[in-house]
């Protein structure tokens, strides 16, 4: 074929290989199996198109804004909550006693913080996701309180809010909003953590079909020791359309008053010690059929929706915490002197502050972009974006807290300062609400499933003889091979990014294009088996997270420049620095993802792991050993 010879002449041999392999694989259908992590490409928002090398400008530009009235309202809320937290919350005592004092909890209830997102008609504040995120910045000043509140409203009562019937809402929401009743979310079991679909708690329908009897036990339940109301997930027998009986998961509203519920003793945790975490056991607990949330058998979807809807707030909570840390640490760095200079004059210390500032900036930008998208009418599915915010924020937060502690050196290590408590409280962020490993898989696979569908569609069209599609794909490949410049519409005449950020926008566009073709590549190379390749999916997820972060940061700073926000040149500096850093990281990972890349050591890594895990110990002989 002429095309082959053209490619052989082009400088980038790699692309040539891709094209010939495309010609060979064009007939292979690319479909992905039905995974246990269920995703529906309902109306997924922005990130999915990145997998196709496309930037869906309209979703993220301009940066979402809230109306003046809403802004005034949220500002009027911030002051009293901040006041309460600075005056009435003794975080050190809460951590030491592993308990939140009842007076503090009552204060929080009176402030109205137990029903932030419950609609006004049910006695709550009815605030939007954006406002919830804003309040989260302040509530995160104390980790235990933040988790207690989140367990109650972000997941505990969310099920009723998003999937409950009118009767259920009217019956339960008012007392939950006032804090008279506290809620908990009961999904995890000793044998089912990340693999949530494998839970074993059973709900058997009674003879008179009026009550379910709940049997089983749940662990790691926040607020489990005193919650009056729980959203419990259990297996129920469902008769499928084909007449086959299956055990599917159903969500139930369970009141402690129903009886048969015992709570274990509180877990002695590393961090968030003031938050109550314990085992909850159900022994023939009777639940009326009216308390099923949504449909019988539809519980897993409810669970995933609940978890997806609360995740984004970790971004604003994390950034709130880092901003506080920056203030505290900068005070110290500006006054502590060693070698005759302030600590703030040393490069390695300065770097730490740059890292903290960038991280806070990115987290904020991502969180409020996601919240803004979620607040749009039509309820777009931002589960992918929310997951990305969570992964970035939890890991960024962990790094920043560690660096902040490092600035204070020995002092940071003592309990006299709050840094060690922030560190301990922070560690859980990478674990709960979906471990970062699971979320990376979710991020990568959701996108690849979407891309796979589109590609399969295109291949079908090609097979049917749709020349247009075939030419388009060939044209794109040629363009890539000949090094055509990428222009996705972010800069230039109709560009959505401010000219002051044009360089970074170009970097983003380059990354996106490279990412799109890499994804296509991977799908051709692996097809269904991509599900098993965690190390590949990890890199895909990491690149995507960076791409979303770059988008958020460019969108936010473009707006800041355009409206002349105070200190916008500092924002531009942060944005450009982050984007350049992310650009090079992305390039490295994408290079590792190319076929036969020497930068990719996955085979060795897996081999090492295999040998260690086989022996279940460190394998090498001791360096001092002798053979004679």
């Amino acid at each position: 074929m002429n095309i082959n010879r053209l490619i052989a002449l082009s400088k980038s041999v790699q692309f040539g290989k891709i094209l010939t392999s495309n010609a060979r694989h064009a007939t292979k259908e690319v479909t992905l199996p039905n995974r246990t992590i269920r995703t529906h490409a309902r109306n997924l928002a922005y990130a999915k198109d990145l997998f196709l090398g496309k930037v869906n400008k309209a979703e993220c530009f301009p940066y979402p804004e809230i109306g003046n009235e809403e802004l005034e309202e949220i500002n009027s809320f911030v002051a009293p909550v901040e006041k309460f937290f600075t005056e009435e919350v003794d975080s050190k005592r809460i951590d030491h006693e592993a308990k939140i004092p009842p007076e503090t909890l009552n204060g929080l209830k009176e402030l109205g913080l137990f029903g932030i997102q419950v609609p006004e008609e049910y006695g709550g504040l009815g605030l939007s996701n954006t406002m919830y995120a804003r309040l989260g910045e302040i509530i995160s000043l104390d980790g235990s309180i933040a988790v207690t509140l989140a367990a109650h409203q972000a997941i505990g009562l969310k099920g009723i809010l998003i999937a409950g019937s009118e009767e259920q809402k009217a019956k339960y929401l008012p007392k939950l909003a006032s804090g008279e009743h506290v809620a908990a979310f009961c999904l995890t079991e000793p044998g089912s953590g990340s693999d949530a679909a494998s839970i074993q708690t059973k709900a058997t329908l009674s003879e008179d079909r009026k009550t379910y009897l709940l049997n089983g036990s749940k662990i790691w339940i926040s607020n489990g020791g005193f919650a009056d109301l729980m959203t419990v997930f259990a297996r129920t027998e469902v008769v499928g359309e084909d007449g086959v009986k299956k055990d599917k998961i159903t969500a139930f509203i369970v009141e402690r008053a129903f009886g048969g519920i015992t709570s274990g003793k509180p877990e002695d945790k590393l961090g968030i010690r003031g938050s109550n975490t314990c085992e909850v056991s159900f022994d023939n607990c009777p639940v009326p059929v009216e308390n099923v949330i949504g449909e019988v058998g539809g519980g897993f979807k409810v669970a995933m929706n609940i978890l997806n809807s609360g995740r984004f707030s970790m971004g604003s909570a994390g950034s709130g915490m880092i901003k506080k840390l920056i203030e505290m640490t900068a005070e110290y760095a500006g006054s502590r002197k060693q070698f005759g200079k302030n600590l703030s004059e040393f490069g390695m210390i300065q770097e730490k502050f740059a890292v903290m500032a960038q991280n806070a900036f990115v987290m904020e930008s991502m969180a409020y972009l996601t919240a803004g998208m979620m607040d749009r009418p039509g309820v777009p599915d931002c589960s992918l974006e929310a997951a990305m915010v969570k992964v970035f924020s939890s890991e960024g937060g962990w790094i920043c807290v560690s660096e902040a502690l490092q600035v204070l050196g020995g002092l940071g290590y003592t309990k006299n300062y709050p840094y060690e408590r922030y560190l301990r409280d922070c560690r859980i962020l990478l674990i709960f609400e979906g471990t970062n490993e699971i979320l990376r898989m979710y991020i990568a696979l959701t996108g690849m499933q979407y891309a796979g569908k589109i590609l399969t569609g295109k291949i079908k069209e090609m097979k049917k003889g749709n020349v247009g599609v075939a030419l388009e794909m060939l044209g794109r490949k040629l363009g890539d091979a000949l090094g055509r410049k990428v222009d996705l519409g972010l800069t230039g005449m109709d560009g959505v990014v401010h000219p002051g950020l044009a360089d970074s926008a170009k970097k983003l566009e380059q990354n996106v294009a490279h990412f799109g073709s890499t994804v296509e590549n991977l799908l051709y190379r692996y097809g269904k088996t991509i599900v098993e390749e965690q190390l590949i999916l990890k890199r895909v997820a990491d690149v995507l997270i960076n791409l979303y972060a770059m988008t958020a940061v460019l969108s936010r700073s473009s707006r800041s420049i355009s409206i002349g926000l105070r200190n916008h040149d500092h924002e531009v500096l942060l944005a450009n620095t982050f984007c350049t850093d992310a650009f090079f990281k992305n390039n490295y990972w994408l290079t590792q993802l190319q076929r036969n890349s020497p930068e990719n050591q996955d085979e060795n890594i897996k081999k090492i792991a295999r040998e260690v895990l086989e022996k279940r110990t460190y394998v090498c002989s001791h360096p001092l050993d002798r053979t004679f």
Partner: protein
Amino acid sequence: YIVTIRVKPDHSGVVTDGVKHSMNPFCEIAVEEAVKLKEKKFIKEVVAVSCGPTQVTETIRTALAMGCDRGIHVEVSGKDYEAMGPLQIAKIFAALAKKEEASLVILGKQAIDDDCNQTGQMTAALLDWPQGTFASEVTIDGEKVKVVREIDGGLETIKISMPAVLTADLRLNTPRYATLPNIMKAKKKKIANMKPADLGVDMVSRVEVLRVDEPPTRLAGVKVETVDDLVAKLKANGTI
């Protein structure tokens, strides 16, 4: 109230631009007392008043969220605002008290930015009303008010007739937190807007600020070994 105060480079005053402003703590106590009196049914309505630029409406909203029924924003901005002092405010309050037919005017004893401690007293004088200042306890008894005042020598109890002016001292009460649901309810409460001219008040200040300086930086001390050394040093720098 940790705010780093900086003097303007031209020494005409203190930088207020971009500095977080909030309700004066003694005024919070005054609002709390007024709301308490209403809850005990001694008074019918509480009106929160603030004089200043647009931003003060936020403070009025906080008062509404604490339980006041309505607010009045007397708009003063620019040069007038910078020159505004206790006398001008007292004139405005006196005019409003008459207009609204108030039985009580409750203020904080002083503002923590200028520490003047004059507004309450001037208001009472302009209205020719009795005043109960530095109140640490207020009890309404029919047409009279019993006020326990914190004075240098201890506590003084007085009984004054209404209408009267009271100023709140620290131990009068502990102000409640404006809860978020109350803040939302407060949005529906009305804040009336007016200018000093509408009340017939002339804002011209009889006081001119010549110069504002930061307090001199503390000099390091010197340790001495004996009393004789101390006497010698004190003589040397002319103190004795």
